Structure formats: structure tokens, C-alpha cells
């Protein structure tokens, strides 16, 4: 019992304390190492949740759903911190980072991890909202870190759109409280997840409907759903690459987690509007829109940012379809996307550093000039495109086949969307990876450890899912309804 409380507290304390420490450490090598160590410890703590599930308190709680998110998040947070250590060394050498800025960067990195952990273990709609707002602000800071014209615009766009999204989410949260208040009673109880979900059937369904609209749009902005996505490509493209990895791999998931929680809540009320169709429509719109947007991209990081939108569309679509199979697929796809997309950014970072440009026209023939990175990119793109032997293939298979049984036309449109997005990615991949090498052949440091840590599990998942994992996913999938 005590140990359990310690685990949740540690999840918050570790990043919070390290944020303070890192803000004070001047040596960037030391701070990079500290950053990794702290992230690693957080990851270990997260793993301990598998063994001991803490009892829910009024503010914090952990259930099967959040455990998956927490472990995934802390894992990607850890590997990204490893990648970041190599990345910033190069940036320092290039003079794009000053040591002071780096202190800020590391502090913000840990703050972000703190905020995301908080959002994932909050047992309170308000607390969750605060955490997500904090995560937004931290990432805004990091996106604007380079202080270039473009970076500031990206951060500004992100801030404004994120702010509006957050505002909408807050309104939704208030509406949920208003709906809960007559049933659960006034005060803190009206915002506690565990209580809300138990009594949701008695809430006013009409109010829940409106609340869900606001919440979907509000948190959907952070998920990057079309048409609320506009901040996402710029934020990915203009910030430091580790942040792009974190954004795609973590922050989107956290927002998705919030959407899922509220979907559960609304879904628990039989009289309320079904949340599924709304999510399906937005997911499909994101998939199709991002698929088309992939074609005319000229910037490699923006390209993969749109691909993140596409995949968020797929995931939201899967969860929107619901049912044990689709939910399972959604969870799996989310995991695979987090791992793969951040791995792609791990390769993109050194590539961009070596070539000195992130324009696609300047990058070509990567398997010739930087074979290891180039092939890693090929593997990453193949994995993200949902081809075997990688895990996303399984999730896409499950989504399509299970959807087709329920509503064939949706599955058809969905497949067309997948194909459109795939063709665009393939088009860029052929240019990026093959043909004569373009640009510099400067040696690039390959972040082997983080890459392997991401791609090997992705490969393994395509071949074999451990029964324990499957059981957990299935349990959660059943619980998501």
C-alpha cells in the first residue's frame, strides 16, 4: 500500500526534482546524463506499476488503461533523453544552442515529463486539465527554443491554437461537473474519475453530449485531429528534433488518453450521444486530410508530422469503432506509432544535422551516403506505413477487418485513406533513401541504442506479442467498450 503510493508520487517527484536540479546544472554533458538517468528512473518506477497497482486516491490513481500509457510514455521519454544527449552535443558544436538555453531545455524536458505523468495518473478531471495545460506550455517553450523566425511563429501558432483548445476543454470539464453535480454531489467528488464513471449512467445525457463536443475539440486539438491540427506540423518541424519525437511519441498520446477517458464517461451513459461516430468521423477526416497533405511536403520533419496526424486519425478511428478487436488494435497502433515515429525522428535528427538541411530536395540517396541511418529510416517508414514484419501491420489488419464486418463503406474509405497516405510516404521514401546521394556525406553519429530500443520491439510485436501484454491490452480493450 505504502509502496504503491510511493510509486505514483515518485512518478511526479522524480521529474519535478530533476527539473529543478537541471535548471541549476551548468555543464551540459552532466545535465544530459542526469536527464537520462532521471528519465530512466522514472521508467523503472513506471514498470513497478505492473507489479503493484496502487489504490485510487482522490487525486491520483492508476488503472490498467493508464499503466499502458505511463509505461509507454516513460519509456519513450527515457530513450528520447538518450537520443537528445547525442543530438544536443552536435547542436552545441554548431552553436545553435547556448549553455544557458540548454539548462532551460533540460528543465523543460523534465517539466514536460512531470506534466504528462500527472495527466496520466490524475484521478480528477480538473487536475488532468491542469497537467495537460502545463505540458502544452512546456512544449511551447521548447518549440520556440531556437528563436528563429520560423520557430517563433511555430510556437506562437501552437500557443494560440493550444490555448483555445485548452479553453474549450476546460469548458467541457465544467460541463461534466455540472452534469455530475446533481448526482454525485457538490465539491471534489464531482470531478473524481472513479466516482464519475460509476455514476455516469444517471447524468443528464444532453449535457454530457455538449460536454463531449467541447472535450473532443479541446483535447482533440492536442491530439492533432483535423481540422484542429494546424499547430502540429509547424511545432514538429521547427523545434529541436528530440522535441519532435516527444511531441509525436508522447504528447499526442496524453491528449488521446484524455479523450479516451471522457469517451468512457460519456459511453457509460446509455442515453447520451454515442461518442464513437464523432471520433470515427474526425479520425477518418484526419487520415484522409493528412494523407493528401503528405504529397506536397518539402520538409522532412513536417512530412513525418503529417504522418503523425494520419496515425492519430487511425487510432481515433479505431477507438471510435469500438469493440474489443478495434480497441485492441487502437492500443496496439498507438504503441507502435509512438515507438516508430520517435524512432523515425531519431534518424531524421542526425540526418538533418549531417546534411545541414531538412528540405527533402536536399536529402536523397540516404542509403548511399549514410547507410545505417538511411536503412533505419527505410525500416522506420516501412514500419509506420503498416507493412510487415512490424507491429503496425497487425493493428491495421485488425482495424480494417473488424471495421469491414460492421460497416463496409467506412472500411473502404479507411482503406483508401491508408493507400493515399501510403503512396505519399512511398513516394518520398524512394526519393529519400534511393538514387544518387545528395548533399554532404558528413559522418553522422547513429543513435544505435535508442533506435534499437524502439525498432526491435516494433519488429517483435509484428511477429510475436507476449501473452501477458495481450492479456493486458485485451482487458483494457474490453474495458474501453
Amino acid at each position, binding site marked *: 500500500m505504502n509502496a504503491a503510493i510511493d510509486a505514483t508520487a515518485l512518478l511526479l517527484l522524480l521529474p519535478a526534482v530533476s527539473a529543478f536540479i537541471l535548471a541549476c546544472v551548468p555543464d551540459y554533458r552532466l545535465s544530459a546524463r542526469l536527464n537520462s538517468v532521471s528519465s530512466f528512473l522514472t521508467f523503472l518506477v513506471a514498470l513497478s506499476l505492473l507489479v503493484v497497482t496502487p489504490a485510487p486516491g482522490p487525486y491520483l490513481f492508476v488503472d490498467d488503461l493508464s499503466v499502458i500509457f505511463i509505461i509507454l510514455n516513460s519509456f519513450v521519454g527515457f530513450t528520447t533523453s538518450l537520443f537528445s544527449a547525442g543530438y544536443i552535443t552536435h547542436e552545441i558544436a554548431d552553436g545553435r544552442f547556448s549553455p544557458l538555453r540548454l539548462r532551460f531545455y533540460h528543465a523543460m524536458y523534465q517539466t514536460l515529463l512531470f506534466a504528462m505523468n500527472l495527466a496520466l495518473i490524475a484521478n480528477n478531471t480538473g487536475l488532468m486539465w491542469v497537467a495537460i495545460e502545463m505540458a502544452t506550455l512546456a512544449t511551447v517553450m521548447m518549440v520556440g527554443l531556437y528563436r528563429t523566425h520560423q520557430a517563433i511563429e511555430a510556437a506562437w*501558432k501552437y500557443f494560440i491554437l493550444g490555448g483555445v483548445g485548452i479553453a474549450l476543454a476546460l469548458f467541457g470539464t465544467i460541463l461534466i461537473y455540472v452534469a455530475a453535480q446533481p448526482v454525485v454531489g457538490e465539491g471534489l467528488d464531482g470531478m473524481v474519475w472513479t466516482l464519475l464513471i460509476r455514476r455516469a449512467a444517471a447524468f443528464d445525457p444532453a449535457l454530457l453530449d455538449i460536454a463531449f*463536443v467541447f472535450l473532443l475539440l479541446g483535447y482533440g486539438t492536442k491530439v492533432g485531429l483535423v481540422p484542429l491540427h494546424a499547430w502540429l506540423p509547424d511545432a514538429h518541424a521547427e523545434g529541436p528534433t528530440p522535441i519532435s519525437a516527444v511531441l509525436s511519441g508522447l504528447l499526442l498520446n496524453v491528449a488521446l488518453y484524455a479523450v479516451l477517458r471522457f469517451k468512457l464517461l460519456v459511453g457509460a451513459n446509455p442515453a447520451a450521444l454515442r461518442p464513437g461516430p464523432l471520433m470515427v468521423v474526425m479520425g477518418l477526416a484526419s487520415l484522409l486530410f493528412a494523407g493528401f497533405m503528405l504529397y506536397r511536403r518539402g520538409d522532412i520533419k513536417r512530412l513525418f508530422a503529417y504522418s503523425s496526424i494520419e496515425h492519430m486519425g487511425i487510432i481515433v478511428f479505431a477507438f471510435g469503432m469500438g469493440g474489443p478487436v478495434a480497441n485492441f488494435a487502437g492500443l496496439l497502433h498507438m504503441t507502435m506509432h509512438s515507438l516508430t515515429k520517435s524512432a523515425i525522428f531519431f534518424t531524421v535528427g542526425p540526418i538533418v544535422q549531417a546534411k545541414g538541411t531538412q528540405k527533402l530536395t536536399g536529402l536523397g540517396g540516404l542509403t548511399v551516403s549514410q547507410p545505417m541511418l538511411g536503412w533505419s529510416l527505410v525500416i522506420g517508414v516501412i514500419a509506420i506505413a503498416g507493412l*510487415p514484419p512490424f507491429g503496425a501491420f497487425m493493428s491495421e489488419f485488425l482495424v480494417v477487418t473488424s471495421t469491414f464486418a460492421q460497416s463496409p463503406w467506412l472500411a473502404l474509405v479507411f482503406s483508401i485513406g491508408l493507400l493515399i497516405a*501510403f503512396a505519399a510516404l512511398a513516394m518520398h521514401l524512394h526519393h529519400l533513401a534511393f538514387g544518387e546521394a545528395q548533399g554532404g556525406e558528413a559522418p553522422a553519429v547513429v543513435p544505435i541504442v535508442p533506435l534499437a530500443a524502439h525498432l526491435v520491439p516494433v519488429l517483435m510485436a509484428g511477429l510475436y506479442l507476449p501473452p501477458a501484454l495481450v492479456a493486458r491490452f485485451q482487458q483494457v480493450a474490453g474495458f474501453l467498450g
Partner: protein
Amino acid sequence: MPSAVGALSATATVITLWCVVGFLAMAFMAVAACVLCRLRDPLPIVSSPDVSSLANGAQPQHNGTPFIYGLCAFVSLLILAAALASLLSGAGGGEVVLPLGLPFVGAHFRIDSLAAFFLIVVNLGGFGASLYGIGYGRHEHEPARVLPFFPAFLAGMNLVVMAHDAFTFLFAWELMSLASWALVMAHHRQPGNARAGFVYLVMAVLGTLMLFLTFGLLAGTVGDYSFSAIRAHPVSTPLAGAVLGLALLGTGSKAGLVPLHVWLPLAHPAAPSHVSALMSGVMTKVAIYAFIRLVFDLLGPPDWWWGMPVMALGAATAVLGILYAMEETDLKGILAYSTIENIGVIFVGLGLALAFKANALPVAAALALTAGLFHIFNHALFKSVLFFGAGAVLTATGLRRLDLLGGLIHRLPVTAPLFLAACLAISALPPLNGFASEWLIFQSILLSPQLPQWGMKLLVPTVGALLALAAALAAACFVRVFGIVFLGRPRSAVASEAREVDRWSLGAMTGGVGLCLLAGILPGVFIDGMAPAVAALIGARMPPQTSLQWLSIVPVAESRSSYNGLLVFLFSALSAGLAAWAIRRFGSHVTRRAPVWDCGFPDPSPVTQYSAASFAQPIRRVFGGLVFGARERVEMPAPGDLAAAKISVTRHDFIWEGIYEPVTRMVLLAASVFDRTQALTIRHYLGFVFLALIGLLMVPALWS
């Protein structure tokens, strides 16, 4: 004994699985070796491939090549043996379930007689290609881009055939596509290959998505993706039609059914030749396996009309494919188009089998299906040999364009007759195997008046005419190929200095030709071998052939038709020998070499020979106007004018222009339209949020 039989089949499955693991291990070894080399020498000097050095036989360092290919050949042989044993013992059942793949289903593997037959095709091709690769691979400039993927490709194809649940099947299917894509991209620097790879990959994924949907219909409602579960829950009639359509799209895009064939002529030539042989000869067959598995096995009893789209598409594919081949001037491109033609022929056989099966004519259905399967086997053989030959030409000259080749019969004295034999086989000329299978298809067409439906009555004779047309065109096409490449005078310096290829390559080709001849003169043995697979799908089989007098084949009953390849062969050989003997004995045998006569107008320039384009011109004038919208324009200078006369031809690929280009245009247009949202102001983006909010708020406001 059923348990023993089942155990035998399971053993075969297990052995094959271990062999597949062996393939994968080889792929892994190759990757590891490449990575290690890279680590040892992090900055290799990247040399650009040079055609002349290639032609002169400059060989880069290859230590692993013979090793990998040799192992591949060995493992293929093992699987071949296992599959043969499984097919001949007639064992079914014996499912192996591994806890891999889809967690709540597992990976099911099973070698039934159909799978065993296709395993034989796959591994025969794989064995040949590996053998060929031992020699051919030495000329590879970047072996690191071929060696890891070749075994993976073989593994993928074997797994597709063995898979016995939807997920494993699709997984292997896509693995096969991906590995072959990587092989297509092996020579990625050559212009056009990137496009080939792109088109191929997109078409492959299109096919896979269609198969996703197919299995969604077949298994989605039940939620159990194993084939046995699918078989136990047949879909309802209208849905089954949809499944048929989706299966045609899904497998047709891999097999090369018109109009989904566009990637073949791009991708097959781009790959290294032994890989082209595998892709053309074997991978398309794996696609047909998928079609047979889906439609004949999983989908339940067919409706009468199912055969019609299959047959119509098959016939159209056959004719269009060979007409395209007639127009093509790239040697490997021609072979790829000819593959399309043969796929069409096979699909006609399958369509007929479906029609017969639906009308409760099991014997006729067995005949048609046997014809289809036999043609699959035959095509795998001779198409492999043809691609090996094309590879030999490529090794010897570095050229693929017909208009630069010529006279190679003098320079490649062993390759030439082997290639010629394969040309004869693919042109369906007796006594080789191509004729035997086409003869069977024609025989099954002749049984089709028994079909009661009017649609069939009108369609089948037309299909027969189209098939006959395709066969005749194929002969013309391969006269052109062999005549332009091997006969005449060399059209380029490189072609006149070509050197014969290595023994491994020649060995692979000789083996293939030997099997072609064997299957041609003893078709009965092969037909009987296929009988278990046919019987499992149709419930009937062709009468046993090997017991017949003189080893002839009789499709249905003694009184009707028969063909004896052995006798025709012996007869022809005897006649030719007799004639030769008689002339030796009674005629003159003085031979004098002299300059060519050519009606008194000989011209030493090799350009004055008939070229590939001029050879095709009469046929283009007959069919081209309709099929390609071909127009010739002749610019004849006025008398006295010394300017050269010019002839120019404009051609249209209506399928590309009519389907693919508009789709591409639409996608790009949509991309451009959507792309405007990339360049909006924050205000506009806020406007989107605003509109989305208002729109969604309207939903509950207007709901009730």
C-alpha cells in the same frame, strides 16, 4: 492409417517451417555481414556502376554470394522434397499452430495438396534462381542490396503458401512484396527504377488492402481468422460476390491481371535477373495460389456467374499482355508483359473451372483446373529460363534494349539454344510443355457447351478466340525476341563482343529446359501428380493418365480427344533424322560461305536489318489502332530532297492514361487543394476550430 498420414503431412509442414527459418536466418546473416563490413569500413568509396566494366567482366569482391545462394538452393531443394512427399502421399490435415502472429489466433500452417503443389512450383523456381544466382550474383555491384532480401523473398513466398490463417497469410504476402520491392530497388541508381519501385509498392499495398477487406468479409463477422474457421462459416451469396471481386482485385494486382498489371513491366525488368525470374515465374503464381485458395477453397460453393468476370478478365489480360509485349523493346520488359499474357491464360482456366464447378460438372471442372495448374507449373519453368537467358544477355552485354542486340547466337552458343527452347515452350509449340497445358485449356473450352447459362454460351467461345489469338501473338512475339536478340548481325559493339556466361547460370537454364521438355512429352505424369490438389478443390479429378497406352493424355474419355507428346516428339525427331540421313546419303554436302545475297542489295551496316520496332510494325498496324490508338506518320521528303525520310509512331497506353493518370491527377489535385491549408494565417486556423465547434454544437442542438 489417417493419423500416420496426418503425421506425415505435419512433419512436412514442420520441415518446411524450419527451412523457412533457415531462409530468414540467411537473410539475417547477410544483413549482419553487411553491417559488420560497414562498421569495419565506415566510409566506403562509393563507385558508380559502369556498364563497360560490367560488360568486361570486372568483378567486385564477392565472398558471401556463392555461400548464400548455395544455401538457398539447398534449402529450396529440401522444401521441394518435403512438398513432393506431401503431395504424392496425398496427405491432408496436419496443421501446425505456432504462438506467433495474431495473438488470439496464432500462426496456423498447413500443407495440403494445393499448398504442396505450389510449394513445388515456388521451390523449383527458387532452386533454379539460387543456382543461377551463384554465377550471376558475381556480377552484382552492390551485393549488400540483394543478398539479404533474396532469402527473405523465398521465405515470404513459402510462407504465403503454407499459411493457414488470414493474418499469417497476409503477413507473409506483404513480406514477399516487401522483399521483392527491396530487390527491385537493388539497382536504385538506374533511371526509372525508383519509379518502378514506387509503382510496385503502391500496387502491392493496394492489393493487400483489398485482401484485408476480403478477409474482413470472410472472417470479420466471426472474428476468427483461421482458415478452418472461415471454411466453417461460409458467407452469404451477395457478400460472396463481393468477396470474389475483392479477391480478384487483391490477388490480381499481384498476379498482373489487366488493368492492375502496370507494375509488372516496370518492376520485373528493374530487378536483378534471377529475381525477375522469381517475380515473374513464381511470385505471380503465389498470387494465383491466393486466388485459388480464396475462391475455390474458402468461399464455399460458387455461383454460376463467378466464372464470367474471371474468364473475361483473363482473356483480356492474355491478349492485351501479349500485344503490349509486341510493342515493348526492352528484353525483360517483353518477358514481363508475356507473363501478364500467361496469367491471363491461367485465369481463363480457373474461370472455366469455376463455371463448371458451379454447374455441377466436376469432371470438366477438374480438367479446367488441371489445365490452369499445369500452365502455372509450365510457365514458372519456361519464364524462369527466359529471364535467366535475359540475365545472361545482360551479363554478356550489359544491354536490355532489343535494338542494340543481335547475333548473340554466335557469341553465346549454349545460352542461345536454351533460350530458343524456352521461346518454343512459351509459344505453345509441340512437343514442349506450353503446348500441353494450352491444349488442355482448349479441351476444357470445348466442353463448355454443357454450361446452361446464356452468358457463358456467348462468353466462352469469345474467350476461346481471344486465347487462340493470344497464343498466335505469343509466337510472333517470341520470334521477334529470339530473332532480334540472338539472330542477325550485332547492332552494337558490345553485342559483337559478348562472352558466354558461367556454368552455374547455364546449368540452371539447362535444368529448366530439361524439365520443360519432360513436362511436354510426359504430361500425363504431371497431370496425375496434380490430381490430389484438384480433387481436394473440385471433388473430382481427371482420369489417371499414366496408365494409358503410350503415355498419351486423354482429358475426359477415350472417344474424344487425345494428345501424345512423347510420340509427337519421337515422330518429329525421327522425321528430321531421316531427312538428314537421306540428304547425307543421297544429296551433296558441300557448303560454301559467301556474302549474304539479300536479293542483290546487301548492306554491311547492321542498321539495315529489321529492328524490333519494324518487326512489330505489321502487327501494330493490325491491332495497334484499336488497342493503342497507334498512329504512324511518314515524312517523305520531296524527290531530289536529300533529307532523310522519317517515320514516327505515337502510341497510347489507354489503361495507364485512362485509369492511373486520372487517379494520380485527382490525388495530386486534391493534395494541392488541401495544401493551401498549409499556408493560412493563425486566424484561419482558429476559424477552422470555430467552425468545427459551431458545427458540432449544432448536432445536439438540432438532434431532437
